[in-house]
């Protein structure tokens, strides 16, 4: 993200392609989204960011024969 330099960003440790959480986990998706929307106001300077503590709560997501897991805590 340091290279991309987005104005403000939120980090969540979801596997690629599942940014708001596990499919069907509506409560968690809503909480992730609320945290992201809250960050619009709380981030006050360019490049500011929030790292969310959510963990992936399902088996790895299968993709081309490989299980995708949550990302590192960047």
């Amino acid at each position: 993200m340091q290279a991309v330099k987005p104005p403000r960003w939120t980090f969540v440790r979801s596997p690629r392609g599942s940014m708001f959480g596990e499919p069907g986990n509506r409560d968690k998706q809503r909480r992730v989204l609320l945290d992201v929307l809250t960050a619009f106001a709380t981030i006050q300077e360019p490049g500011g960011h929030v790292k969310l503590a959510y963990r992936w709560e399902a088996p790895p997501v299968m993709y081309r024969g490989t299980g995708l897991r949550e990302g590192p805590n960047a």
Partner: protein
Amino acid sequence: MPPMKAEQDWIEDFRVAYGHWLPEALPLLERAEYQAAFRFYPFPEFDTTPWTPVTKPLAASRLGVVTTASVYRPAVDPPFVQGPEGDVSLRRIPGDVTLADLDVSHSHIPEHVARQDMNTVLPLDHLRALVAAGVLGGLAGTHFSVMGYATRAADLAETVAPEIAEALVQDRVDLALLVPV
């Protein structure tokens, strides 16, 4: 902090570097050897961070979503092209769309997840509920979808990104939520 626009001065150099990169990378891309191909990709470098201050409370703000999950409407629009250079085209997603009418065409992500629950990449069900609850002021009349795998970054910066930005401004959107996948 005062507003600051995105840099443009990398684009010309990028186009030159891309012209050198592509012939060498193409055989690797066609064999899906992405790590090898992108090891020498001319990633743009930026000195500054674009910035627009948030001036309204969330409950008074109108929000538009830009997803990179290659979401599209199969009954209306073509899918994204799955070539070695990806696709730099744009799909418009009407604000009142039914999620069941959407699909994804992005061979670089596990598409079955989005097909199982589109809210994982375009959380319109939740956003609509937040508007109904008064937490969020409103939603854009149109949301936007691109393919996150698109190697022609200069084309994205010069054509698609300004088109999205202009449309969001015309739609009186206060907040743009970019969902990268």
